[in-house]
């Protein structure tokens, strides 16, 4: 195992340019969990970002918030300004327990690319963007909704690092984050839903329902079009078009489809006239 302890962002980007296989690590809340049994991880080259205070930032600008790559869940939970983006502290509070929340980073949640990530759906519902940096290519901004190409397949080049996450500051009249897990705390999501409605329209995002966290295009269209929905079953076709949940150690595909439909229906029924 080799570890490069980056001394600056510039140094980190330089290292990543010369060693594109290096694995960035910050909070370590995913890597360390798997460490004892994952012997292949012991052979990797690690790029330790944890000392880069220049990335440990939360900045509210005029029309967006920028979370530096080392901003943690806890940084958001404790920051009262996030009442403007309530899904973020709401989602953050469901991740692990306080110990994890104080170490885990939003950028890490994105980079880890777990379909069950809890931070990602909240960000995606707000149209967040991922800021990628590299030594030679400078800065590149990608919509989070376009960031995943498949299971653990990222729109990020080997030499790039996530340097920040930008979340537009918009007025939302409806929004919520709903997590169904196997217990009330310290559980990984079995069925997850984040939605937000603004002047830009509906964003309906699912986690643990497909190979990646994703927006539900067919469901968004159905809701935006005002198609009559009399019960959860009326959502089934659109959900089946958007989502392909699997059986795994935590749940079954059948359960996920059925419960996602119900959770979604009961979330939107009080706020959408088309839902009876």
């Amino acid at each position, binding site marked *: 195992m080799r570890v490069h302890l980056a001394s600056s962002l510039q140094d980190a980007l330089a290292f990543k340019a010369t060693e594109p296989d290096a694995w960035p690590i910050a909070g370590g809340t995913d890597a360390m*969990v798997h460490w*004892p*049994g994952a012997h292949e991880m012991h052979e990797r080259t690690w790029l330790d970002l944890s000392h880069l205070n220049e990335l440990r930032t939360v900045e509210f600008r005029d029309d967006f918030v920028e979370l530096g790559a080392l901003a943690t869940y806890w940084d958001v939970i404790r920051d009262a300004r996030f009442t403007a983006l309530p899904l973020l502290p709401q989602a953050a509070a469901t991740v692990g327990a306080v110990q994890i929340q104080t170490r885990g980073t939003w950028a890490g949640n994105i980079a880890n690319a777990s379909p069950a990530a809890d931070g990602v759906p909240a960000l995606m519902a707000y149209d967040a963007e991922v800021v990628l940096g590299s030594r030679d290519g400078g800065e590149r901004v990608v919509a989070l909704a376009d960031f995943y190409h498949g299971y653990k397949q990222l729109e990020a080049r080997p030499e790039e690092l996530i340097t920040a996450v930008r979340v537009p500051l918009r007025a939302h009249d409806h929004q919520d984050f709903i997590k*169904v897990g*196997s*217990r*009330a*705390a*310290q*559980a990984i999501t*079995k*069925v997850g839903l984040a939605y937000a409605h603004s002047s830009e329209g509906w964003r309906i995002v699912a986690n643990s329902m497909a190979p990646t966290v994703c927006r539900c295009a067919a469901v968004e269209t159905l809701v935006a079009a005002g198609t009559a929905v009399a019960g959860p079953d009326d959502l089934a076709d659109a959900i089946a078009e958007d989502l392909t949940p699997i059986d795994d*150690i*935590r*749940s*079954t595909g*059948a*359960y996920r489809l*059925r*419960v996602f439909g*119900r*959770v979604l229906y*009961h979330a939107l029924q009080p706020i959408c006239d088309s839902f009876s």
Partner: protein
Amino acid sequence: MSDRHKLNVIGTPAAKVDGLTKSTGQEIYADDIDLPKMLFGKMLGAIVPHARIVSIDTSKAAALPGVKAIITGDDMPRKYGILPVSEDEYPLETDRVRFVGDPVAAVAAVDEATAEEAVRLIEVEYEELPTAFDIDEGLAPVAEEARIHDYGPRDNVHKLVNLHFGDVEGAIERADTVHEGVYFYSGNNHLAMEEHSAVAQYGADGRLTVWSSTQTPHYVHKAMAKVLDMPASRIRIVATPNGGGFGGKSDPFPHEFCAAKLSMESGRPVKITLTREEVFYMHRGRHPVLMWLRTGHDDQGHITALDFKSFVDGGSYGSYGVASTYYTGALQTVTYKIPNYRFRGVRVFTNKPACGPKRGHGTPQPRYALEIHLDKVAEKLGLDPVRMRRSMLVDEYTMTANHMRVTSCGLDECLAKIAEAADFERVRGTLPYGKGIGVAVGSYLSGAGLPIYWNKMPHTSVDLKVDRGGGVCAKCMEIDIGQGSNSVLAMTVAEVLGLTPDDVQLVVSDTDTTPIDLGSYSSRVTFMMGNAAKEAAEKIRDMLVAAVAEKLGLNATELVLRHRRVEHHGTGEGMRFAEAVPIAEAMFGQLSSTGSYTPPRLAGPYKGSGVGPSPAYSYSAAAVLVDVDPETGIVTPERVWMAHDVGRAVNPMLVEGQVEGSVYMALGEILMEEQVFRNGLHKIPSMLEYKSPTFLEMPPVETFIVESIDGEGPFGAKEVGQGPLLPMPPAVANAVYDAVGVRIDELPITPEKVMAALADKEKGGPGRFGPGGVPEVDFGEVLAVDPVWYDQPPEDWIPTVRRGEES
């Protein structure tokens, strides 16, 4: 009771005597032991579920710097097993592995990382064999050379039981109604916070000491002598305080033998602490059990016959399995009058970690089946489930059809208490959709009536020694696994001698320095050790009383020990305890005493009757209020009312603690915990994915202590460590039905199963999730035994003391 006989310590809520030591982090657990020049051991487990070992090459590991000793099966080629009838394990397997994780070699090295690297360098060649992973596969015919073990009645069948008491068929035929059902209870792990750990030191004097986190130092001692082929007198086992046991530390384990052998090979102390993953593979937890039952009832719902079958998935070794199998059929009869009873059971070997005892040992599974079944019967007959149960409870001081002797029984009071507290009759049926209430009962042993290897010796003894300064030292091999047995020992001695518990110094769980106690299993310690401690203390009391009476010219029968004094019960004339001691020592010599306890002979007149008898049974009744979210299937227990007949609460605070702990552990089994394997590989061997409840899942528990004052228990006490788990799973299942109208006849009751049952119901189905049927099995020759009828107790049975009388 006159004031003279008032209990001053027993019955008083008190902190544990080791509470401060534990809560301040000063307790020394096995893994805290750090001896000079100590090495760290690591075992290599099999990576295939069933195979012949073709070869083991340890040369690369031996060449690794820092490696001090390597052993394989050939170094300890003597079999052991907790039960004499199934000694089928080697510490390291010699020719065959039977589950993924089955240890084949072990290394001692200067540090843990080196030991881990070394075991990975050991090359093992396997020739794979056919596998069996579940009950159906375990029952399938198999070629002789592919059998998992070369013993047992046939194929991979480990044990068959076929017992018949009375005339079940006749009673079923004559019954007003007959009901039948099939249930499945999943296997799960104990999940003790402390992983197993052992430290061994083989000295230049040729003596071996093993400190181990074990519930049964005596049985480890016995097995260690056998496996190492050493005189037991050269071996000392010290059980270290267990950070939870729950049955998971009741077998002798490979790491204990390996630490010992590696110490003998290297000449240095060796520690082996299991990882959490290894604990899941060592297991010995709850058996998965498939069950079928059929009952006949009269028009009042009274059971006229019970026909019961259990299919027990044993995993790869015998462990306690023969006893576990019998237990699945033993205690159905001690709660309800069941005049005709048939029990057929089969345990199969499968290529998974061996199952063994977990809290309730073999009895929560049938209790789950029976109590849901009775809920269904009550509904069909239009009867209130509490009233129906109360109308058919066993009598006190009676015998059951399968020859279990019942002494005190506070079950009716338990049911009355929880029904009243939960306002059951009014609440049931009036709750909105999604809310439900359920009840169930249970019963458990206060210690097994027979020891694991049959003999006539005491099951426990306590030595007391009083020093001239007035200090009292109590010695016993009992091991506190968190249940509070140290406190019970100190409180019992303190009560009799008029002291406070912290006046009593304890020396415990050491085969060299303490007299026998068989271990912390079968809920036996309070009952048995309590009796021994009481006897030993009464001998000291009698000497003190005689000495003080003579010194002060008082009548010995009028003296009492209380408030650290020996004094006249009326006038208070007397002296301090510490002053009385030298006077008594001058009169009698060193003030020492021994008390012992051997249960009365309880086994019935048939093979298999050794499992189930107990000097006394505890009883529990639970009511549970649940919320079931029909959108997600999530079951949330909102309130629990538990009444437990503990005979007498030695320490009410510890009784409540055990009740709450039982509720908590039960909720894990009910809602989420399950050992899951794929081709023998544990799918979730970590606390990340093997989910158990957090305190957010823990509902308020209202505990009612019922005291039936058992005639044979110390001060009337019975058990509480295991019994309160039993009614929980069926009570929750019954509450789920009350809430949303679906029957989940298979644990755990996951949201997935609830949703599947709700979907089934929506489609017009029965709204049930559970097994569809049971396999056809030849259970072998039936052993027909005349039942003991309730109006004909055996002539040789007379309880020593009747309820309500004090010794």
